[in-house]
């Protein structure tokens, strides 16, 4: 009887194990399929002129989108990172456990699960058509994106701060250091690795975002933006634009540029994270 039961358990075990292998395989296969597809279709079309050249009707380029993307990344990080980190410091170092903290946590959770098109709608109502009535601007898009990635940065910063051993905090306070000194000299440097990776991952989300931008920055693919108040486009929007305009080769090529940027950022994130951790060990 015992052996029968054992056999049943081991069959169950093998089936589960097999299933998990199949699932893992499917995930990797899907990823490889997408990347290969984009690369095969697009790589031939990627060249210096396509990335950095002036946009002409006959030879469309992603240069305006590249500039627009950089604007958007810089703006959203410049807005979201300080606010996110400051809020995380407040939640971990100052706030007493209680209602206020719970309300903030629930708000953050909710913000992070709202679909991005809803953020886009918000940006459209507040910045473009209603509210301040700027029309389509990079600034409006940047602020909207900042609100969108704020929860990501905040939660990662909070996790990193909580992961700093409390004996460091005690050691600092016991030396007569005040709270502010303790936060800046001990807590934040130790949490820096996690915070930096979170910021870089947030940049990745900004780069890949399209729904928000369709509604806020106007998708002007032909002109390099002149400043924060001009409309613009981003790499992800260019993919959409080229795709719907029947320029599927350009779409794939823009996809290649986009994927390269995202992969590079992810590598940078893990490298910086490791570097900052190593500096401490």
């Amino acid at each position: 009887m015992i052996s029968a039961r054992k056999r049943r358990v081991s069959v169950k075990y093998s089936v589960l194990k097999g299933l998990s292998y199949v699932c893992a395989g499917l995930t990797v296969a899907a990823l490889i399929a997408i990347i290969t597809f984009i690369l095969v279709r697009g790589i031939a079309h990627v060249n210096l002129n396509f990335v950095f050249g002036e946009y002409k009707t006959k030879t469309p380029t992603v240069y305006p989108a590249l500039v627009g993307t950089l604007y958007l990344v810089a703006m959203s990080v410049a807005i979201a990172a300080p606010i996110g980190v400051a809020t995380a410091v407040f939640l971990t170092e100052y706030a007493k456990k209680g209602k206020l903290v719970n309300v903030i946590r629930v708000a953050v959770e909710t913000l992070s699960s709202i679909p991005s098109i809803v953020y886009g709608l918000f940006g459209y109502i507040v910045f473009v058509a209603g509210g301040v009535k700027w029309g389509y601007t990079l600034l409006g898009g940047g602020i909207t994106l900042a609100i969108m990635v704020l929860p990501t940065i905040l939660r990662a910063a909070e996790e990193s701060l909580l992961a700093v051993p409390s004996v460091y905090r005690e050691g600092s306070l016991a030396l007569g250091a005040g709270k502010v000194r303790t936060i800046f000299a001990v807590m934040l440097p130790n949490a820096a690795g996690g915070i930096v990776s979170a910021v870089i991952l947030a940049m990745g989300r900004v780069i890949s975002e399209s729904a928000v931008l369709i509604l806020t920055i106007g998708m002007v693919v032909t002109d390099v933006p002149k400043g924060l108040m001009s409309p613009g486009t981003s790499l992800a929007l260019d993919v959409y634009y080229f795709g719907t305009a029947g320029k599927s080769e350009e779409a794939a090529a823009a996809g290649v540029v986009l994927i390269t940027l995202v992969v590079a950022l992810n590598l940078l994130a893990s490298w910086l994270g490791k570097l900052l951790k190593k500096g401490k060990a």
Partner: protein
Amino acid sequence: MNGQKICISVRSVNLFYETFQALKDINLDITENEITAFIGPSGCGKTSLLKCFNRMNDLIEGCRVTGEITVEGVDIYKSADVISLRREVGMVFQKPNVFPMSIYDNVAFGPRTHGVSKRSDLDAVVSESLKSAGVWEEVKDNLNKSALSISGGQQQRVCIARALAVQPKILLMDEPTSALDPISTGKIEELCEELKKQYTIVIVTHNMQQATRMSDKTAFFMLGEMLEFGETEQVFSRPRNQKCENYITGRFG
């Protein structure tokens, strides 16, 4: 033991964590330039009392202290200036808690916090503190190396140096050798002998031999009460309290 000046005086102190009473009506005087040891079974309140002396208990939510504790004549729970209290009363923790930065920056942390910024002044404080902590010879060529790269015993002495760099009058030590090997432990005990010429030391220990080797006075705690307090020699050879005798002879605890 000349002068016998009282450095810390504790009067009718009770300490509560929420509703749990961790210290019950404690009265004791700690003499200047002596080593006072707190012994007793785990959870008896000795660390809680130690952490009253530099108000590290303030960090624990729901912790409440009644009664009066004066350090150098100042009622520390009436005076709001925790920072200057902690400059007077340094602390060494159970496990070495060097910051993940260089040895130099660890020791310079306190002085920098309190406004010393001239490189030559910092250099002087750092080398002097490391010498006082008996670890200078071992680390003087590696001051810019991460403090986490040296041994646990060396780290703990760097922690002592870090505390000394603030130039306190009192040094609190919470089981400072419990994470260390016997050789490192011996070094720290010898060091304390040396340090008590300049500092008043209060040490919590689970090691009876350590208390007899190091301390001038010993206080025995159990379940939040101080059952015995006196000259170490008397406490260990002729304890007045039965429970204290049972504890130090190893019958329980």
